[in-house]
């Protein structure tokens, strides 16, 4: 009897030690992601790349090739495709960027004139109670911000070089050794919660993979619809604006508005409020309607089973804690937390045959 109690306490002590070591490793890993400069962004980008190419890797591997060879083939293929795409698009992109850079002062002037008109209307209507002068403040703000944006872009790109180098490298090792690393980590998990953690890890990984693929597909479709729409109405900077709309569409709720804002501003400054603005807004509205009525219900909503209120709250929380990146990763993180909590709760309470 005494021996049985002794063994029981030794097992329990071993479980506690293993649990503490496991949690420490996880916390240490997460902390280093947040503390080391650019590591979180590189990790997120690598994760996205991994989940995009992993079906292709598995497909080729199922044909009998070794995993390392398949990863190298996929990497070479993807880099070649990406390189060719950049080579093909970059002249248009650079042209549009240069043209935008040249046109920016006129857009600033236009916006200031618009503000002038607004100021005059306001001052005429309030019979001198408030004296508003929007134009000067707006000119200073727009000039400084737009110059900062255009001139800061190359330095931003060069400062992101570490992310561009680190992400493919991390992605390569995630594809090659990711499962082995998670298996090694699982070795430390105590026996009494081993199956729970294994199941959690698998569910979370599946959910994140589906979410990333769904959101990227959504962004690509929204970008393509905007591009086709802007090209159809002969709008300038169509590629830049479509790329911007596709990227900002990754930000929940405010992303589509931010994505449409530059095009709306350009049309208002150039031609005022009129039919052209209506056409431009129509393009963005059609893109959002396709997104809301087809892509989200068919692709995204099936992946993340979260209540809309929870989604809004976690997006706000993500924005508060980590800005735009926080808004983008808030939903999958919340979904992963939900899976974890539900499974732990079931494991602890739902003990029935």
């Amino acid at each position, binding site marked *: 009897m005494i021996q049985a109690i002794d063994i029981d306490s*030794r097992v329990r002590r071993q479980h506690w030690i293993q649990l503490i070591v496991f949690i420490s490793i996880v916390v240490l890993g997460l902390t280093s992601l947040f503390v080391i400069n650019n590591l979180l962004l590189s990790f997120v980008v690598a994760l996205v790349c991994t989940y995009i190419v992993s079906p292709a890797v598995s497909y080729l591997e199922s044909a009998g090739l070794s995993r390392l060879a398949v990863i190298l083939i996929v990497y070479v293929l993807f880099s070649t495709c990406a390189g060719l795409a950049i080579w093909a698009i970059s002249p248009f992109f650079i042209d549009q960027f240069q043209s935008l850079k040249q046109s920016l002062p006129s857009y600033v002037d236009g916006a200031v004139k618009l503000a002038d008109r607004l100021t005059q209307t306001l001052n005429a209507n309030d019979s001198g109670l408030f004296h508003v002068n929007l134009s000067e403040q707006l000119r200073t703000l727009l000039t400084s911000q737009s110059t900062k944006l255009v001139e800061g872009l190359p330095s931003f790109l060069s400062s992101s070089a570490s992310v561009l180098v680190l992400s493919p490298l991390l992605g390569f090792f995630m594809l090659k050794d990711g499962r082995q690393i998670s298996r090694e980590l*699982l070795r430390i998990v105590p026996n009494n919660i*081993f*199956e729970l953690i294994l*199941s959690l890890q698998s569910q979370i990984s599946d959910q994140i993979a589906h979410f990333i693929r769904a959101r990227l597909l959504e962004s690509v479709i929204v970008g393509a619809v905007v591009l086709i729409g802007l090209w159809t109405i002969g709008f300038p900077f169509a590629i830049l604006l479509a790329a911007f709309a596709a990227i900002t569409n990754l930000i929940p709720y405010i992303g589509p508005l931010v994505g449409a804002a530059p095009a709306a501003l350009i049309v208002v400054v150039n031609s005022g409020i009129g039919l052209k603005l209506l056409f431009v807004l129509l393009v963005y509205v059609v893109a959002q309607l396709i997104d809301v009525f087809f892509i989200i219900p068919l692709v995204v909503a099936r992946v993340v089973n979260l209540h809309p209120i929870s989604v809004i709250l976690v997006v706000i929380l993500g924005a508060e804690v980590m800005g735009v990146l926080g808004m983008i990763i808030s939903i999958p993180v919340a979904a992963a937390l939900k899976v974890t909590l539900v499974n732990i709760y079931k494991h602890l309470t739902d003990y029935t045959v």
Partner: protein
Amino acid sequence: MVNYLWENLFRRGQKDSEIDLVLNENYLFRVLSKAEMAFIKTLVHYRAYRPGESIFRQGELGVGMYIIVKGTVNITVEDLRAADESQRNVFVTRLGRGDFFGEIALVEQTGRRTATATATDEVALLGFFKPDLAEIIERSPRTGVKILTRLGEVLGRRLKETAERFTEVKRELKEMAQDDSSN
């Protein structure tokens, strides 16, 4: 230091050969080729248990099966209707090296363990779980089909055995009822 390293290397080598042997003998995997077996070896989870330690308990969510590499495992069923607490755990069977258990969880949607498995001595097990099976099907469908076919055979055999046992028990009950009525 050299001795310590040598002992660990030796132990690791011994553990590897034990795993190879158990996997090669296992009904689910013995049809696989050498390359397929090497792939399976990278997927299974080696777990060690102390005497008396619970492997899983009846009613818990289960995600896969275990193959015994070393030691013995007791399978018991909890009889919730038993009045006496000491008689609540009904012994079912004792499994030894090479035996496997919990395989139903591999194919169940939300599988709950129907019995409790406890290590009776120092036990080493190889865990093979749903995510591992899914990975095999994704990365090597041919291997996945071989394993699933064997798994189907095992489950079919278990079902047949249960049906036979059920018929036997029914017949015994009938005979007992006839004996009672004749007395």
